[in-house]
């Protein structure tokens, strides 16, 4: 690649300044579109284009736009930065240790992208100039619709049938229902028990410690806790005990309230 003379290196005559001047950024579909338009102004085949000159034109254009303080989309600035980099790669000789892509490679890449975009545009034009359905080519204007008469074929499996039957027989047969008897701590009970347990203790003690002996039966845990908690709130309201919790979901501490503390 380095052997072949790359004609995009050749510096063509710099573009006339006003060539760039009347370019209107609004009319472009992004930086690649702008570059393609600038390239066409070189009036040569894209393969023979001077990428260096193109980059300079683009950068000059962006510079002009910015001088006029016109808002410009970030896409254009990213391309400008990339082209500035490309320009530097093209002008600075490549060191042997250089890991980065050569200027020629970057230039070829840009050229490829321009050619590809142009090709897709040409393809779109070719597509649109084909004899299109509804414009030059027509389908039957009076299609004769097929009248469809639908008859339903019902589907059910023996399994579905049996399962359904069993389910409803079972549903219909279980008529006796004995609700599970559960022991429930009444609020009054809980309150009595709490008052008895706390007694005269002014120490902070977790509620669960007080209730330890009642919490052994799993079935009763919920009702013991719930009723005790509700009762403890009542006791706090009455000024008989203090409650404290230091963290969310942490243990609930309680102690007898000293009569003289406010």
């Amino acid at each position, binding site marked *: 690649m380095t052997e072949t003379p790359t004609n995009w290196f050749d510096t063509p005559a710099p573009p006339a300044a006003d060539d760039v001047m009347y370019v209107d950024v609004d009319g472009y579909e992004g930086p690649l579109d702008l570059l393609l338009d600038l390239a066409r102004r070189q009036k040569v085949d894209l393969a023979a284009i001077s990428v260096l000159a193109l980059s300079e034109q683009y950068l000059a254009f962006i510079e002009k736009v910015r001088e006029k303080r016109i808002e410009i989309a970030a896409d254009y600035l990213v391309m400008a930065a990339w082209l500035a980099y490309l320009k530097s790669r093209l002008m600075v000789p490549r060191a042997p240790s250089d890991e980065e892509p050569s200027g020629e490679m970057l230039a070829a890449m840009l050229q490829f992208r321009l050619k590809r975009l142009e090709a897709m545009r040409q393809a779109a034009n070719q597509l649109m100039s084909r004899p299109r359905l509804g414009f030059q080519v027509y389908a039957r204007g009076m299609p004769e619709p097929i009248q469809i008469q639908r*008859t339903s074929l019902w589907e059910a499996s023996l399994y579905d049938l049996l399962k359904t039957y069993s389910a409803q027989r079972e549903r219909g047969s279980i008529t006796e229902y004995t609700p599970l008897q559960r022991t429930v701590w009444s609020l009054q009970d809980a309150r009595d028990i709490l008052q008895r347990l706390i007694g005269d203790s002014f120490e902070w003690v977790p509620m669960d410690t007080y209730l330890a002996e009642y919490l052994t039966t799993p079935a009763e845990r919920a009702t013991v806790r719930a009723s005790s908690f509700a009762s403890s709130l009542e006791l706090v309201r009455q000024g008989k005990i203090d409650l404290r919790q230091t963290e969310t979901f942490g243990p609930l501490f309680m102690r007898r309230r000293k009569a003289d503390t406010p």
Partner: protein
Amino acid sequence: MTELDERTEITERNLRILEALLFASAEPLAPSQMAIYLGQGANTVQLLKMLQQRYASRGVNLVQRADKWAFRTAEDLGFLLRREEQETRSLSRAALETLSIIAYHQPATRAEIEEVRGVATGKGTIDLLMEAGWVRMRGRRRTPGRPVTYGTTEAFLDHFGLQSLSDLPGLEELKGSGLLSGRLPPDLQIPLPFDGALREDEDPLDGDETDE
């Protein structure tokens, strides 16, 4: 090119244009509407008649409606444009429940079906099952009101792959397959479906009730 060849070529060209116009038009066309597309001096009606002749034996014919012309499917092929389509649909739960009760409890009246289901059964459900060809009216129960009794059909056996109604699994089999749980009242019974023509408590349907 002889004059004859030339005339033929012009005619063919005009015929092609007529074909395309008539094909693409959304409504029948009058000769005057088509004439503007043809070469000067063309006899549109004559050309249309030529075209009509050409298509006379085809699957599509050129027909004249009042003074307008249009392509239409040949009359003898009209059947192509009508199609019967079958779509498979699964039965609703209500229909499946009703069907299974009729199957096990037949001959069953509507009141009996409702008693097992615990809800009223819409008339539509039984109609649907009869339409599907799985349920039929068997007779009338010899009780006040003489309610209609329902039973299953041969098509029912066919569809569910049963040789006879006695192939319907009984209590033990339903339990064994896990369809019925073990926790059932001991007095639960699964009836043996009645397979015969009429049971002693059934009267035949009146003459005009038997359809089909």
